[in-house]
């Protein structure tokens, strides 16, 4: 195998990985704190994509104003997250997991149809922002600038996120909420506000990643269900609630998928599911997580 071929395979895997990381990190944060698998996280991602498209249409249909539209999409999804957490989720915290799971599933159904109602079933697409539309030559392969940008933004968010978690007062509170919610509550911290804040931040990340994916992938109904399964696998591999775990989980997922296609074509999908099952059997809390 030629080096350039291997390289483009690695880069392909990394692009998938960093995208998934943006989405999965939010899923993992919500799980780490609230112990809820938020199926609706994929729907937030889808809404981010549609809203970015809408923003671009309003601002400038040829694709300028992409960054403003992205910000608009992420913030709107964040606000939606705040409403959902405050109005509905709050009353489910004491209830069984089953009800919480089904609540997020109800959101998947409702938001999926809402998107169909608002934007139809046609494929929509957004053109690459002009500043990143070129490509550069590396090892004899042409890498689009936008892909490189995505590959860079993943680690940037991972580093920023882990710095916030480990160095700041807010990060300390979040980690404390992960470990023992009652104790933190008893110590006088406003746990409710922390929950809302984390949920909003996770929704914001989902909206952001949905907006950022639009120049690469077309926006179609059903993208919510497809992505949530992948993000879920990533989080299981890395460890629910672990920030760096999610990062490495994304890298493993991306590369297994990218190279799995070479080794047994047609069964790469199977290989990632099998990897997830094996990890759940051997180390249910994931490669980098801690037992509950």
């Amino acid at each position: 195998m030629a080096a350039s071929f291997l390289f483009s395979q690695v880069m392909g895997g990394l692009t998938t990985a960093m995208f998934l990381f943006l989405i999965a990190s939010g899923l993992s944060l919500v799980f780490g704190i609230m112990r809820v698998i938020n199926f609706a996280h994929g729907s937030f991602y889808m809404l981010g994509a549609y809203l970015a498209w809408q923003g671009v249409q309003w601002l400038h249909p040829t694709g300028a104003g992409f960054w403003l539209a992205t910000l608009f999409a992420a913030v709107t999804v964040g606000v939606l997250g705040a409403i959902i957490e405050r109005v509905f989720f709050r009353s489910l915290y004491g209830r069984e997991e089953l009800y919480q799971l089904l609540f997020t599933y109800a959101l998947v159904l409702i938001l999926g149809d809402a998107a169909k109602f608002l934007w139809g079933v046609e494929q929509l697409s957004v053109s690459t922002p002009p500043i990143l539309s070129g490509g550069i030559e590396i090892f004899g392969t042409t890498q689009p600038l936008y892909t490189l940008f995505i590959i860079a933004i993943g680690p940037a968010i991972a580093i920023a996120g882990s710095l916030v978690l480990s160095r700041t007062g807010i990060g300390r509170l979040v980690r404390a909420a992960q470990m023992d919610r009652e104790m933190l509550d008893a110590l006088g911290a406003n746990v409710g506000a922390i929950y809302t804040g984390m949920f909003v931040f996770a929704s914001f990340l989902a909206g952001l990643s949905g907006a950022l994916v639009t120049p690469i992938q077309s926006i179609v109904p059903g993208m919510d269900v497809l992505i949530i399964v992948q993000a879920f696998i990533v989080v299981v591999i890395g460890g629910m609630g672990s920030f760096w775990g999610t990062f490495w989980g994304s890298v493993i997922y991306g590369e297994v998928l990218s190279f799995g296609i070479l080794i047994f074509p047609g069964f790469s999908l199977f290989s990632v599911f099998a990897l997830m099952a094996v990890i759940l059997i051997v180390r249910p809390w994931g490669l980098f997580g801690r037992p509950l």
Partner: protein
Amino acid sequence: MTTETTAPAAAPIGVAREGNWVRRIPWTLIVFLVLATVPWVGSRYDTFLAEQIAIDALFAVSLNLLLGTTGLVSFGHVAYFGVGAYVCGILMKTYEVPFIFAFPAAGLGTALFALVSGYFCVRLIKLYFAMLTLAFSQIVWAVAYKWNDVTGGDQGLPEIPFPDLDWMSAIPGLGDLRTNDQFYLLALAIIAVSLAILHRLVRSPFGRVLTTIRDNPERAAFIGVNVRAYQLAAFVVAGTFAGFAGALYGIFSRGVFADFVFWSKSAEVMIMAILGGMGYFWGPPVGAAVLVWLSQKITAYTEYWPFMLGTILLVLLFALPGGIVGGLAALWNRIQGRRRA
């Protein structure tokens, strides 16, 4: 949120209730006898609807053995439905095995798969259990979707033959029915027997132990119950009957497709169980009936059925956690209480 176990809001399954005249009528038998008359009194469409409901009812009851009785939240129950459908479909179509052998083989195959996957699943607690069951169901889906030579891949297995029903034509009164209707009667009989077996099982000492495990696994272990073995047994039984439901469904819908096994189907059958009331044996069939009927009615008017389903689910979660049967039982108890007072 704590990880403590809280029992689902439901009445205990398997506890004998006070006898009164309403309960002494054999409702189950009446319902099945009425359903058996559908091919004569109803249209083709009615038979189709009744068959869909009956199969979904068996599927939902099998899930409820885990969900309501044992307290195991399986998010991948559709895997066993799918394995049953594929085993029966492949045997009957590709290898031309008669139904009388293919159907038990589907149950056996599903039981084996449930035994292996369940062995790993029941070692995990709560949410991890839900995640691993989901993972297994996605593996089944990936195999079904990609293994073209055996499962037909994304094309599926169309045109699964009907079983040989000549013997039924020999029975007076059934001879002039269409093959569809004859198969409906056969499926209905199989489902009735399956539900009777499951009902016996839930009310048996075995079922009591499962309920104990649901309510308090630690205490169950403390009094000497091998919790994992019982959970695994429940898992295998639930999987097997889901496999039977799947085998019937494959023939009923004249084909087996990878869509059958997609994870959203697991959620759908879970909604049926909860809509009816997972604290009651007859809750899930009621949920199946209501949901199938509603989906048929609503899709006739609008394409936004998922939106309606999501709304129904929200109402259930926030306003009616005991489901339809739970709500009716509460209402009945209030009326009874008022009468006594």
